[in-house]
């Protein structure tokens, strides 16, 4: 059975004795054939030794394959050196996609902005310096007013520098498909501004060798003022405008229907998409393809009831639709019991998961009682007869991992999470918890609760998403728009609704007006 790839370092099968494995197989075979648990006992699960995980955290092809294929297809043995399993193929293709083809495209826009910013910062200094360098002798001497202007210029430039660093010099977190309209607008504005100032300067000051130095300094100061105002405009357009909420986005994941609602302000579609993806990575539970399928035993029962034969030589196309309609009608009329099986199967699975969870919790609690934090002050008093060896967290983690390993693995298999947690990652997490004095419950939180996608992500490569939209992606959000964010095997569908207009009325209640009476119903006999 080619479930093992050529990189496996530690196979589950080999950790148990032959007798227990045989016993398990025999017990599994006694179960009814309709359950697909028959083969599950034989499947080998790989706990990876140190090395990269077998599959990418976000998109696994783990249990998609038909569970019975080991019996019905010819087996391809994975022992030849040149063979490459299915998982490797998907991993390689995903690697190719995830790395961006041109790394430099990501940095083009910030580089442009940086150059323009630098030029605009040096310009006032250049305006001041050039006359001094070129025609110093003929300049009018300029006393106190100039010095005042120098000081104000210096401080304004400092403020400009600091705020540019604070606001704009950040590594971009997303590569958008189209131009970011506001940013382009602002860059164009700055460029136009600085160019026109240089033009004026060149024509009116450099050519005729203007001698009024105070005027030149005033001119440079006005340029810095204008740059500060442009920066204010940039702040409002890029950072502030979209803070006031105006739309509610409903984000639904297509594969399992998990949905969230978010409030955003006035954004373009691509900016809204980036924002939604930021929230997706920390809000949505991780996509686990193994949890999606109904057991095949339930679904296939419906289809196998009728066989329709083609008698005579009528028109073929007519007959096929008639055929399928007849089959559907017959299937609908038949009493359909598959919901029953689904219900019982669900109950059974849940019971199994709960049982394994109980075993896991007990095993972990017991394991944690084996170690204790070593107090340094008692070093002198510890008797030489019992030299307890002092371990560092890593060794302590490895020491207590052994008793809980089996229970942990069975639980992960029951909840189909085994592809997200390798043995190495479990030991790392254990070490982390021991170092920070966490209780067993805190250690188990990571495995009992399905976490957001961010928890299982390695940050080495960027994520490739495709924005699918019927309108140009630089259009701003409007009511009723729908766009999709697609990845390889699932997508997020985003619907836009505007937030309602709120009419707030006012009502004043006098605190003295809170009075009460008893509800009477008396009966008097006369």
């Amino acid at each position, binding site marked *: 059975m080619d479930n093992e790839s050529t990189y496996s370092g530690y196979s589950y099968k080999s950790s148990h004795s032959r007798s227990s494995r045989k016993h398990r197989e025999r017990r599994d075979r006694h179960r009814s054939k309709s359950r697909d648990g028959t083969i599950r006992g034989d499947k080998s699960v790989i706990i990876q030794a140190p090395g990269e995980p077998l599959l990418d955290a976000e998109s696994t092809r783990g249990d998609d394959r038909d569970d019975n294929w080991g019996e019905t297809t010819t087996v391809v043995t994975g022992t030849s050196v040149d063979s490459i399993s299915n998982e490797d193929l998907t991993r390689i293709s995903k690697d190719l996609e995830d790395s961006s083809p041109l790394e430099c495209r990501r940095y083009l826009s910030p580089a442009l902005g940086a150059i323009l910013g630098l030029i605009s910062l040096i310009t006032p200094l250049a305006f001041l310096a050039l006359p001094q360098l070129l025609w110093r002798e003929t300049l009018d001497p300029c006393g106190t007013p100039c010095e005042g202007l120098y000081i104000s210029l210096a401080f304004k430039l400092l403020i400009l520098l600091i705020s540019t660093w604070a606001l704009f010099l950040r590594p971009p977190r997303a590569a958008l498909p189209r131009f970011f309209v506001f940013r382009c607008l602002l860059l164009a504005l700055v460029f136009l501004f600085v160019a026109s100032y240089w033009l004026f300067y060149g024509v009116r000051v450099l050519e005729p060798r203007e001698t009024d130095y105070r005027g030149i300094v005033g001119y440079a100061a006005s340029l810095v003022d204008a740059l500060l105002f442009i920066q204010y405009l940039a702040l409002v357009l890029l950072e502030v405008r979209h803070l006031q909420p105006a739309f509610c986005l409903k984000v639904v994941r297509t594969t399992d229907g998990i949905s969230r609602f978010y409030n955003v302000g006035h954004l373009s579609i691509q900016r809204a998409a980036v924002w939604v993806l930021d929230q997706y990575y920390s809000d949505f539970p991780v996509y686990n393809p193994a949890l999606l399928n109904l057991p095949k035993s339930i679904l296939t029962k419906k289809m196998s009831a009728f066989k329709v034969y083609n008698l005579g030589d009528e028109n073929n196309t007519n007959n096929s639709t008639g055929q399928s309609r007849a089959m559907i009608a017959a299937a609908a009329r038949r009493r359909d019991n598959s919901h029953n099986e689904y219900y019982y199967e669900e109950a059974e699975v849940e019971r199994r998961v709960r049982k394994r969870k109980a075993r896991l919790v007990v095993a972990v609690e017991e394991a944690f009682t084996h170690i204790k934090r070593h107090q340094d002050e008692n070093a002198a008093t510890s008797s030489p007869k019992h030299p307890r060896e002092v371990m560092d967290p890593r060794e302590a983690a490895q020491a207590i991992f052994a008793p809980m390993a089996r229970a942990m693995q069975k639980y992960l298999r029951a909840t189909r999470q085994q592809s997200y947690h390798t043995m190495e990652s479990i030991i790392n997490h254990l070490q982390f918890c021991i170092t920070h004095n966490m209780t067993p419950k805190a250690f188990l939180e990571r495995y009992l609760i399905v976490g957001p996608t961010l928890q299982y992500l390695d940050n080495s490569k960027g994520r490739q998403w495709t924005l699918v939209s019927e309108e140009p992606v630089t259009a701003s959000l409007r009511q009723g728009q729908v766009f999709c964010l697609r990845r390889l095997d699932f997508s997020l569908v985003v619907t836009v609704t505007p937030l309602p207009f709120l009419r707030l009325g006012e009502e004043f209640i006098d605190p003295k007006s809170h009075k009460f009476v008893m*509800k009477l*119903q008396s*009966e008097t*006999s*006369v």
Partner: protein
Amino acid sequence: MSFVPGQPVTAVVQRIEIQKLRQGNNLILGFSIGGGIDQDPGQNPFSEDKTDKGIYVTRITSGGPADVAGLMMGDKIMQVNGWDMTMVTHDKARKRLTKKNEDVVRLLVTRKSLEEAVKHSMGGYPRP
């Protein structure tokens, strides 16, 4: 038996004359009343309109003067000896019924079955 505020109330009434019975020091009539403008009309089991704050007969002692005279449980008392009972407090109603110097009380009472009977027999309200 609902009414429009501000408009005169019309109802089909029955005239009942009750002779008070002397029992020891008291003159009794043999029934109990409930309701009144100071009471909670929602708890009245006999009224059709749960905002009706009129005086209703809630209990009748069997064999008493009221029973003999033909008063029935659930009747709404409209007048007592000419005094209006549709807009009185509970205590005022009690006082009007238990005046010591009166031997006889003449009540005008209304009930649903009266209206039905009139409708059946005449096909509508009798015109004045």
